[in-house]
């Protein structure tokens, strides 16, 4: 029973969130914030894989989100809605419930392939030069999307709202909340399992000393490719969800500002700490909302908080450690530690 406490906790949160949204207890504004928290968790933990665990400096995360967002949105709108861009729908809107996760995963797959664009230069360069290459890729993706006029170009693309309405006609549930949090939990599970696997250990070894890792038998090229692809794939998933939550996307929202937000969340939480990036995603999203009354001064306070954080607690909230390292009893409560070990 105790071994599954974490799963029960996650399930309990999920049921609570979906149930309260369905019952109407949570206002649409609060539901939106909750969904954004989920998307941000996916964004920050996927970037943490490359920036934190592998020690690279990838500044272009929003570009992969854009790839995933546009791919998924184009496919869902093409399949399930009747519109001016694609014409009549190919399948009945009710199919959206079954096919949506697959289309989302397909968007993530395309984003993972786009991640190869960044993975290949990373073989030859590191650090600051890689930062520029990732920045340039971000710009190129954004520019490329802006120039494709049939899907709206810089004006943006909409129609995802009708996909969600199609799902709602089958069953009146808060579908986006359900999908967002299913994928958020899947992401966290995936990254946790990945990091504790041999691949993950290879990636951490690359951060510590790339040459030593190569000598010890870690196939650094393969590891880098896998890490970049996984990271951008998950970012693509996050992008697809983001697109369907908002119902409208435009290339401008996937520029430097979004990449900076992702960077801030990773470094706020602590490099190489999964619970750190989850925690910081929650804190950051809530902070943005709490500071909303300040209007213009919000974007003055947020960088200021981060500068102070960098000056006084450089490692971020949790540093290199996980939450269970700071609170050892949690390990027992959440059933992460096997009972029966003699305590030293």
């Amino acid at each position, binding site marked *: 029973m105790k071994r599954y406490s974490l799963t029960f906790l996650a399930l309990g949160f999920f049921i609570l969130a979906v149930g309260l949204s369905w019952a109407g207890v949570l206002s649409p504004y609060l539901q939106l914030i909750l969904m954004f928290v989920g998307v941000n968790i996916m964004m920050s933990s996927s970037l943490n894989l490359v920036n934190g665990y592998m020690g690279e*400096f990838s500044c272009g995360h929003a570009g992969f989100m854009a790839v995933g967002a546009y791919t998924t949105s184009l496919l869902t709108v093409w399949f399930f809605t009747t519109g001016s861009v694609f014409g009549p729908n190919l399948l009945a809107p009710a199919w959206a419930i079954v096919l949506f996760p697959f289309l989302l995963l397909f968007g993530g797959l395309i984003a993972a392939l786009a991640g190869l664009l960044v993975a290949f*230069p990373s073989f*030859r*360069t590191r*650090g*600051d*030069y890689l*930062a*520029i*290459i990732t*920045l*340039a*890729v971000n*710009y*190129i993706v954004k*520019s*490329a999307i*802006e*120039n494709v006029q049939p899907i709206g170009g810089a004006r943006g693309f909409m129609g995802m709202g009708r996909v969600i309405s199609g799902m709602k006609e089958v069953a009146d549930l808060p579908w986006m909340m359900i999908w967002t949090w299913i994928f958020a939990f899947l992401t966290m599970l995936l990254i946790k399992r990945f990091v504790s696997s041999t691949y993950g250990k290879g990636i951490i070894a690359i951060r510590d000393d790339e*040459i030593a890792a190569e000598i010890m038998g870690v196939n650094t090229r393969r590891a880098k490719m896998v890490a970049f692809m996984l990271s951008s794939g998950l970012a693509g998933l996050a992008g697809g969800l983001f697109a369907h939550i908002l119902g409208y996307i435009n290339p401008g929202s996937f520029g*430097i500002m979004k990449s*900076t937000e992702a*960077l*801030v969340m990773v*470094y706020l939480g602590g*490099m190489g700490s999964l619970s750190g990036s989850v925690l910081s995603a929650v804190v950051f999203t809530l902070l943005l909302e709490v500071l909303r009354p300040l209007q*213009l*001064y919000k*974007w*003055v306070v*947020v*960088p*200021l908080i*981060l*500068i102070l954080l*960098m*000056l006084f607690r*450089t490692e971020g909230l949790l540093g290199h450690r996980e939450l269970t390292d700071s609170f050892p009893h949690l390990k027992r409560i959440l059933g992460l530690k096997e009972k029966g070990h003699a305590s030293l």
Partner: protein
Amino acid sequence: MFVQNIINALQWGSFYALIALGYSMVYGVLLLINFAHGDIFMVGAYIGFFVSTLLLGAYSFQLPWKLSGGLVVFLTFLLTMAITSGVGVTIERVAYRPLRRKGVSRLYVVITALMVGLLLENGNLALLGASRRNFPELIPKVLYSVGDVNFTNIKIIVIAVTLLVFLFLQTVVLKTKWGMAMRAISYDRMAVPLMGIPADTIIVMTFVLGSSMAAVAGILFAVSYPILEPYMGALVGWKAFISAVVGGIGDIRGAFVGGLILGFTEIFVAALFPSTLRDLIAFGILLLILTLRPTGIFGVARRTKV
């Protein structure tokens, strides 16, 4: 037509070159990408705006005598460079120096630099409002026409000033003791204080030089395109950074060459292709140059000892 584009490219590239200088020098000395530098350019333009309008008597604080046009230009440049250097040095003292003392990994300083940049942009937006400012016309525009080619005297001034700045900085870095100290720090930061060279002073000097050049770029940009807005430094800053890297970051010639290359790429791409593809193709070409020569044109590959 071709010559017209060349002149435009030279002028446009000069702005990138002047800002890329600041990135290059700070990177050469500190191995830090000062992402706030593009916003120091913006701050320089705004300070130039306030100084020049003050000198031209637009505010209630009137100077007891009327200044001639040339003197206004000279004083604007001087005062703006001084105040912008002050801003740059303050940023260094407050944000970068404590982290340097702690000895943390460079990544954290870069994040701080990003945040400082955001702070400057949004602070400007919050304090001064979103309305754009009109820069006063300090240098009256004179249009010249040589055959098919039209250019204003301002374009010539920009190109000339950039050339002068390049020669000045080359002299400082290669021929003076301070320049030698700057180059020494880029080779071995630990050994320099042991030799009796005040490393902190050199770093402050680097920031002063970089910020003054960004201020010069700011004023020239404002004179050429007289609309000021808080986010003008963001995109220009990123592009200048990329041009610094393409030219070889840490090297002053690299900053100039990189800036001019980016200027040429943008102008000629905009001339030959539809203008919406400009950013896309320019960045693509830059990626290509970086793939072929990862350390940039004048850059030196740093060897890491195993």
